[in-house]
């Protein structure tokens, strides 16, 4: 079966310096896949490549077997990839509702049912729907960013460090919602520095180091792996 998403030998360069080398990643329908790695490992670059914001210099990105790596970013959304960028990047002066509407921009026309679905996932957004995005708390902004990406009705949702800078309770709430999103049929690729929590959530995981995939395995196996425990779970060597 063709995986929903496949990165095949992807190389990305910023100028002369490669940020990704020979990266192979697969995400299958209905999975939650975690992408782990230290700062600067290339996690964000991987997601930006998938959503067309940067172009690979080698290799290919395949969505359901079709190449998408040369498609302009604003059209990738229409192909079913929703991207929640690092640092949320909601539109600060637009209201919550307008932010959500922009998320559905490529399909023209938002129905109330679609909005209601988002508000059901994030009830707080319904309360704040006429408030400016910039006045929301960090957790609410993250929810809005996820809601905005969901408005495009993606088959694959890319999440870049959704837990960044949030209180533990809020992180838990967000991770619960990610699970729910998957249960409703959206495949998820999540980038995290918070490796322990991400691996508990995910089915499988990849570990990036200096732009290369150094480990790829089931989440449980990775959680038990000595090297992962030392490097990413902050445990001293046994």
């Amino acid at each position, binding site marked *: 079966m063709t995986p929903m998403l496949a990165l095949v030998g992807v190389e990305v360069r910023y100028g002369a310096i490669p940020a990704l080398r020979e990266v192979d990643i697969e995400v299958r329908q209905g999975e939650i896949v975690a992408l782990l790695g230290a700062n600067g490992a290339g996690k964000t670059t991987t997601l930006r490549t998938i*959503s067309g*914001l940067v172009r690979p210099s080698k290799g290919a990105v395949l969505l359901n077997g079709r190449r998408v790596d040369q498609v*302009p*970013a*604003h*059209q990738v*959304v*229409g192909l079913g990839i929703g*991207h929640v*960028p690092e640092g949320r*990047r*909601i*539109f*600060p*002066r*637009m*209201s919550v*509702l*307008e932010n959500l*509407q*922009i*998320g559905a*921009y*490529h399909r*023209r*026309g*938002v*129905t*109330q049912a679609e*909005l209601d679905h988002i508000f059901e996932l994030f009830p707080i957004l319904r309360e704040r*729907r*006429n408030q*400016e995005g910039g006045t929301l708390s960090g957790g609410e902004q993250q929810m809005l960013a996820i809601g*905005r*990406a969901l408005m*495009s009705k993606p088959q694959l949702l890319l999440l870049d460090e959704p837990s960044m800078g949030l209180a533990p309770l809020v992180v838990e709430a967000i991770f619960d919602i990610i699970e729910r999103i998957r249960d409703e049929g959206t495949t998820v690729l999540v980038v995290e520095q918070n490796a322990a929590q991400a691996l508990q959530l995910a089915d499988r995981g990849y570990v990036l180091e200096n732009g290369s995939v150094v480990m790829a395995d089931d989440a449980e196996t990775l959680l038990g792996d000595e090297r992962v425990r030392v490097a990413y779970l902050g445990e001293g060597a046994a």
Partner: protein
Amino acid sequence: MTAPGTPAARPPAGPEAGAQPAVTWDERPTAWARLVSSVDARRAFAYLVGFLVLAVMTGPSGSSSAPTSGFTGSLFNPRVFWFIGLAVVFWGATTARHRYQARIRAWNDSVLALPRRLMPDKRVRYGFYLALLVFAIIYPMHVSGFWQQVAVQQIGVYVLLTVGLNVVVGYAGLLDLGYVAFYAIGAYSAAFWTGAMPVHLPFHLNPFWTIPLAILAAMMAGVLLGVPTLRLRGDYLAIVTLGFGEIVSIVAQNLTSITGGSGGVLGIPHFSVNLLGVHYTWGLGNLPYYYLLLAFVVLILVLFHSLEESRVGRAWTAVREDEVAAEASGVNVLKYKVMAFAIGASTSGFAGVLTASQVGYIEPQDFTYYLSILILVLVIFGGMGSLPGAVVGAAVLQWFPEFLRLHPLFGFQQQDLYIYLGALLIVMMIFRPEGILPSKRRKREIGLAEHGVGTADAMTTTTAEIQ
């Protein structure tokens, strides 16, 4: 400058007061020592000196026979009081900012809310606009020829230009410093198609028919310039457009055989209609042109207002706020930037035709970069992204110098005008950076009706309840 900021950061005077030299040469800190060590007093002194230097620098210059006349001519001149006044205003503005910021904010907010409080109903607001329009139709009939000319050449044309630049700068957030180039392209197009230029076609057109051609030319220039440069980030765009503006004016200046060079182009005909037995020429009088402009301005305002409220307007806002997020959300960023740029260019080109046809004479000096800056100032003064702001900002700032020309104030000199406008703008940036009539973006209610959502009304009602 000592640390500006919150009132909490105020006591920069504290440590300095502690280190007063006064203690060493006089046991008691004298009033003078306290004054010298006061930040506010030193700032006042610095501003006073600064503005006096400015007064001398911009005043008459000395000569070998009277070497000091540069100083005396500037300092013993009623004009100097204006500069002292500016020093006081700047001192007040920078000092008061720290002390009264909260109060000024609150005042600003209440003034901002005023139009909504006074005119909560949309119908009342439209009624108000209609009343304004009636005023704009009737009032100019009763003013002198001088003011009628001001209404056309200083206010009408500039309102049009400002409203157009507002789309580029205010809606899409693109810093276009070469806006006047499109004005020039429109004006020269009109000259070309009416056969007034040194090069001409075997036929010529009535200026009316040049309007679409000039708009097309300006729009094409906008697209050609926009497609490669709008991929660049903001600062680069500003530089490229500034350069483009200069290129256009230099070409107009030097390509004598085609454009008439620095001598300009004479004899551009007036608009006229000759249709179904109706014959009319917009002649030398200003009023007919005024009404023509008014009609076009109203038309364009309605058009831009509906654009602003449409999908396109929302895309522009998204692009302005975060290009990457907009692109990642499915907005074709380049397309919407080019669109805004081209709409601005067309409006500018359109204004060019109107000017060329009314004045009948254009020259390259009419299209220097300083005009681009002036129009940008009008946009910022009115409130970026706000249509009423663009109209009122342009009208007020263009009217005021003419008012001063007729009623000179004590010591006011016309050539100093831009110093005062600059000062006004700086003070505004301190107290009211959003402009005099800022856009209602913040408080805008969201109409989902556009998307055919049934419960849109319910939502709007809730919005009203919340506010």
